[in-house]
């Protein structure tokens, strides 16, 4: 069996999310070093606040300000911080009920060691230097002895653009207006492995051979193979060389340039049934003006030096294929 092919795969999105009025007030508050909660239908103060009651799901809007000190309700010692987590040095995860709140907020607690942390310990917020209106405006919690007992106080949810607190901060934190959205970057790293059938296909492509796989039940040849015949639900395991030439079964004309793709528009993208294949693959057609490409056009792959797959397909000059010869593959 040939060696397993693998390749790094990065999935990365900057998620842009809009906020409801309660979330907006909360995150605007964090930017101004103020923590807001919302009063639930049963009178509890929910922090971090939600747009709806956690029990009844009814809409809730009554904002209150709570303290920036609080009590740890549970914790877990994280000796090996992972990428993206609030602190790069060992820390405790903690659920903290801020003074005046009835529910707990999850964040990191910067403490010298597991032995220094316990449920019931008193902590306070350490604010991030640069605040943008995000949960990470709280850098973390830190141990802090103080008396609990602060009561929640009513809050309008509005913050003056230049209140004294923000004025004292850097310009970045004095950004005008309420926070109405967040951009949350997310990146996950994978090691992609294509599996048996596709590995065989990719390994053959190194030698510029196109190897499909035949279904043992219906005898169809799939190029590229996906490991299973989607009609019969059985593994394809007989390798069959297809092409290299093929027939354009259908095509479209691309008029809008794709980002990061250095191809002049308009160009033709086509379904190509390689000779001996029962499923069309798709590729770009070159070497012919875009408005002369047609169904039935006979094409051959064009390789560039060092490439692991054909760059595009060009006309072979053969007569066009008869419609009946490819009509089942459209």
């Amino acid at each position, binding site marked *: 069996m040939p060696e397993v092919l693998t390749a790094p795969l990065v999935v990365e999105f900057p998620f842009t999310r809009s906020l409801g009025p309660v979330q907006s007030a909360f995150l605007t508050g964090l930017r101004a070093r103020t923590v807001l909660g919302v009063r639930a239908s049963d009178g509890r103060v929910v922090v971090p606040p939600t747009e709806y009651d956690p029990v009844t799901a009814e809409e809730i809007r009554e904002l209150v300000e709570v303290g920036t000190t609080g009590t740890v309700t549970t914790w877990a010692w994280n000796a090996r911080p992972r990428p993206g987590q609030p602190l790069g040095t060992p820390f405790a995860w903690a659920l903290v009920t801020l003074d005046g709140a009835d529910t707990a907020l999850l964040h990191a607690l910067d403490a010298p060691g597991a032995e220094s942390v316990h449920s019931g310990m008193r902590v306070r917020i350490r604010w991030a230097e640069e605040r943008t209106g995000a949960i990470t405006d709280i850098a973390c919690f830190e141990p802090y002895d103080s008396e609990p007992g602060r009561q929640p106080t009513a809050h309008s949810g509005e913050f003056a653009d230049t209140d004294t607190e923000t004025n004292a901060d850097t310009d970045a934190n004095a950004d005008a207006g309420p926070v109405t959205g967040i951009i949350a970057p997310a990146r996950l790293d994978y090691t992609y492995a294509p*599996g048996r059938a596709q590995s065989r296909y990719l390994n053959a492509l190194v030698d510029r051979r196109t190897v499909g796989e035949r279904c043992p039940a219906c005898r169809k040849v799939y190029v590229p193979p996906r490991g299973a015949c989607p009609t019969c639900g059985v593994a394809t395991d007989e390798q069959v060389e297809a092409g290299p030439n093929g027939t354009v079964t259908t095509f479209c004309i691309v008029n809008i340039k794709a980002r990061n793709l250095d191809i002049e528009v308009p160009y033709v993208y086509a379904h190509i049934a390689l000779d001996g294949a029962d499923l069309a693959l798709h590729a770009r057609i070159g070497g012919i003006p875009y408005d002369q490409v047609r169904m039935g056009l006979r094409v051959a792959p064009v390789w560039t030096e060092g490439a692991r797959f054909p760059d595009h397909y060009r006309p072979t000059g053969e007569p066009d294929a008869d419609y009946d010869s490819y009509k089942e593959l459209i």
Partner: protein
Amino acid sequence: MRDVAIVAFAQTAHSRTSDELSEVEMLMPVLHEVLDRTGLKTADLGFVCSGSSDYLAGRAFSFTMALDGVGAWPPVSESHVEMDGAWALYEAWVKILTGEADTALVYAYGKSSPGELRDVLTRQLDPYYVAPLWPDSVALAALQAQALIDAGATDERALAGVAARSRTDAAANPYAQLSGPAPMGDYVVRPLRRGDCPPVSDGAAAVILAAGDTARALCARPAWIRGLDHRIEAHSLGVRDLTESPSTRLAAERAGAFARPADTAELHAPFTSQEVVLRRALRLDDDVTVNPSGGALTANPVMAAGLIRLGEAAARIHRGESDRALAHATSGPCLQQNLVAVLEGEGHAA
């Protein structure tokens, strides 16, 4: 209401990696096995439903590729949930109850090895207040474990006992990934040690559901679904009491779990501490055999591990080793969402 039963179950031998297999290549043998058990062909199936998540392997629309393994031509009646396969089973059960189908194939797969599962699972969390902090799955379970320890509901020794029992039981399960005695190891996130945490697994599972006489024709001793319900709790961890699982309790009540004692319970508790919570929620006493398969602590293919609990419980009824079994599946952090099924065999077990 129609009687519906689980009539067949199959699963992969779960493993830490499966680099040589695509998802459909991993899944297909399980689909063939479960169909072979009943003699059904794809064309005979009234409904097909699957559970999986593209985030695990980072492959967009992977469930459409997985469907190749079913053989979906001529077109089949098909659905998919981005959840554990236990919820796909729930959908299939409802479909059969409506009378729109007599049989259903339910399958689930999870290939966690291509990514960093602990990080991947952070992407299911509240995107505003929690996900930006990247709290990994072990960290969240550890917060729950500490809350239990603080409440006097368990301690590290008792948790180690859960781990040891699970691994000992897994020795009799050829599909388990881990089995036999092992040291608890260092803290991963304190108070949870290596032995309190599930392995990272690649694997798949499938079951076949059938109604009434069809079930009797396909299986000598069908595992009848007497009740099935799922419930969810508030999504903010700080709103919940992490030492309790009211959603499990409610689902169990609605499924009729407390009407009569069960002899067996397959609990989807990926962390030792979660078994403590579930035992209390389900009021299981020491007479109940808990996780004879070894449970998710010995093989945890995410998205399939809950369906496997239903399959394992059903298989014990098929084999005559249980008359009445509870099966439980969970989803989300710290047992956020829970499904409970009550399964019974007819006649007394041999």
